[in-house]
């Protein structure tokens, strides 16, 4: 088919690759994505017979309209931050730890075990012991899948995910069985912890010391990643495992260490939830914090400071979601909004690497 002559039509919009990812768009796009997601949510709300503006206004008021709303937003952000920071370290090394939920439950279990087994310890021993038990159990739960991954390359996505169910069912077994509070009217929860086993709170709100843990963890993580030898190794392995091996970096050892840190942070989230909020172990202690944490870490591009900010955004969504449920909006709407935000941010990602070129070029 010699001499194929192709028509000279040129599309009006073309993609052009950016030489460097644009810094400006890296900020604008997530913001635009949130707005677009709210827009989609509005269409959905309108279609189901609600006034979207009213619903959003209620949501906003529920979050920033009262001291309670604000403090609840902080309260809900604490586990999200810790778990989000946890998964982000693992993700940075290309370890897809989907198991923050299970590590959260095991952390809560570890802390609860200390509180229930030694109820008479004074606070200055009790809280550190619970802290250690929480991070230890979370860490162990993440190292379990890390070992086969490091030794035989067993895919950690599956193993971490499966261990979530084990952890959740283990806690359920305890609260429905041996640890059930005899005075609890048959509800699936343990007896309340002693006063010594509760985290101090701030200024009459429910905001507890866990907030300090989370902020310190973010600072610590940033220091580890960008100021220490270990962090350097993590970044090199994450960017190029081949170069890491070439440089003599021990990849297997780092898989285990990083998963340990990742799980410990999620475990700490579980510990601070039982010691700070519920003051007992109970069924459904996490409404999916460990999964939301994955979305948060991803949206924040694994950056510790950004994870803190994005956690507030998501906890605001959760709290705002509760407040609109009173006016009949289903809880699932909030999950849908979260999904829509993620969808638009990831979709918009392409704009940081490509540029849209408008206008007609020559071509007759």
């Amino acid at each position: 088919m010699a001499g194929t002559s192709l028509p000279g039509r040129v599309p009006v919009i073309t993609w052009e690759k950016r030489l460097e990812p644009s810094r400006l768009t890296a900020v604008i796009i997530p913001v635009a994505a949130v707005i677009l997601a709210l827009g989609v949510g509005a269409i959905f709300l309108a279609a189901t017979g609600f006034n979207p503006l009213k619903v959003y206004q209620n949501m906003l008021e529920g979050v920033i309209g009262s001291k309670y709303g604000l403090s609840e937003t902080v309260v809900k952000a604490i586990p999200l931050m810790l778990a989000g920071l946890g998964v982000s370290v693992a993700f940075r090394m290309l370890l897809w730890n989907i198991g923050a939920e299970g590590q959260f439950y095991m952390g809560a279990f570890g802390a609860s075990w200390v509180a229930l087994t030694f109820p008479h310890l004074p606070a200055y021993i009790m809280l550190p012991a619970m802290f250690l038990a929480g991070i230890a159990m979370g860490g162990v739960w993440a190292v379990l899948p890390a070992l086969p991954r490091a030794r035989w390359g067993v895919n950690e996505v599956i193993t971490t995910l499966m261990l979530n169910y084990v952890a959740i069912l283990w806690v359920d077994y305890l609260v429905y069985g041996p640890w059930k509070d005899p005075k609890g009217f048959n509800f699936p929860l343990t007896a309340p912890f002693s006063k010594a086993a509760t985290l101090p709170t701030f200024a009459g709100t429910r905001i507890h010391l866990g907030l300090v843990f989370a902020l310190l963890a973010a600072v610590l993580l940033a220091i580890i990643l960008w100021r220490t030898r270990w962090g350097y190794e993590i970044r090199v392995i994450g960017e190029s495992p081949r170069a890491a091996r070439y440089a003599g970096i021990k990849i297997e050892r780092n898989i285990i260490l990083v998963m340990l840190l990742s799980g410990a942070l999620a475990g700490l989230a579980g510990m601070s939830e039982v010691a700070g909020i519920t003051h007992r172990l109970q069924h459904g202690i996490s409404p999916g914090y460990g999964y939301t944490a994955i979305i948060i870490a991803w949206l924040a591009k694994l950056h510790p400071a950004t994870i803190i900010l994005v956690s507030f955004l998501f906890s605001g969504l959760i709290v705002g979601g509760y407040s609109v449920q009173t006016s009949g909006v289903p809880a699932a709407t909030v999950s849908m909004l979260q999904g829509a935000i993620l969808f638009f941010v990831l979709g918009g990602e392409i704009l940081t690497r490509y540029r849209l070129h408008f206008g007609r070029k020559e071509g007759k």
Partner: protein
Amino acid sequence: MAVPLVEMRGITKVFPGVVANDGVNLSIQAGEIHALLGENGAGKSTLMSVLTGLYRPDGGEIYIDGQKVNFRSPRDAIAAGIGMVHQHFRLVGPFTVTENVALGLKGGLRLNLNKLAGEIAALSKEYGLQVEPQARIWQLSVGEQQRVEIIKLLYRHARVLILDEPTAVLTPQEARDLYRTLKKMAARGCAVIFITHKLQEVMDAADTITILRGGKTVATVKKNETSEKDLARMMVGREILWQVSKPAARKGDKVLEIKNLKALNDRGLPALKGINLTVHTGEILGIAGVAGNGQRELAEAIAGLRPCQDGMITVAGQELGQCDPCRVINAGVGYIPEDRLGMGLVPNLGAVDNLLLKEYRHPRWGRVFLNRLAARDWAKELIERFQVKTAGLNAPVKLMSGGNLQRLLLAREISNRPRLLVAVYPARGLDVGATETVHRLLLEQRAAGTAILLISEDLEELFRLADRIAVMYEGEITGLMGVEEARIEDIGLMMAGAKRMEVSA
């Protein structure tokens, strides 16, 4: 004169900040081998990306068989019979050769891989492109992968075949085989365009030559009306000095000693079948050989990246043991790997982090914390000393040109003051200027007393740099001689396995 098969008129392509092509003209007849000659950054690859529909020109026209075309995507270019073998191959590593050829073929859901494998075997026989249809891509040497790329195009009946620096990965023999293939294709009425900056290659293979410089066409000449010297002047825009002065070797103590080394390749087949070699201080031992005869495995075994089946490697009397890159680095071995951006450097990290890659364990940066300020100063000094052009100390190094990447890599490996430097294809894909730099740095290291093992497929390079040349064929050393008594013909025969000499390491 017949209507040219391909004609590009006044092609202009602008990237932010750079005019890559500025009114370039190119005209190619069916049945000719046309070289596109120019230094890195002259705009050769951009021009070919325009021809293959990858980029849209900002100005200019393309005619195929005298008819104007407008390629909106590579698909249009492929439909018009234009195919390209890129420098970085477009192959799927875990797939077999046959499966790679099958990718993107039209013809519905039915796929008869056995029939296709037969056709591939026939094609490879017809054009002298030796490759096994059932082999998986990741197991193949770079040279073999290139053949797969060419077969892909032949299978799709490409009439215009573009090769981007094809011989950068080949030996003289392999290159000659390639030329033969290209001539066969030209004889069947195809047009072959190859991009290069090697003059020798142009004189060996091309019929017509178009020279580009700074995004503009300098001239189009017939091969038999020009000379290497003229081409060099047109390409670089000034006279260049070819002579690299090499002082006499001051050969000293044994540094690297390899005894009866055996190792497997990625396929699990023997790649090294009992290698014996020694390299002394202040000496460059060159290893010649066709790609895929065990050179990569040898370098990786020394670097501790590949387990040894048998034998032993000692550096300065210290045995390296089993597969521990960290220990090898500490023994004072520098390694410039074949794959700069894939192994030697971390593409998304900056120059400082990349320079630290082997240094960061040194206690002077701190035991737990990395003193980044000190590291930055140190990196800045190295970058200046080795004249690396960066976009900033922390800008991702993947933005740098090939020559600068290699300078950065050399800066790191040399600044460690290695006892032994293993360099694999160190000048591959570099332009004349960068090649000169790499050669000068290697000779400086030799003068400073480093033992250098230079693995190269460029015989010219080996003759210029090496003190002794060993030839590798199918995992064995088939010849070892001083460079003075070496003759290209003998080495060629040994590389092809047609001749061997008794070797005593």
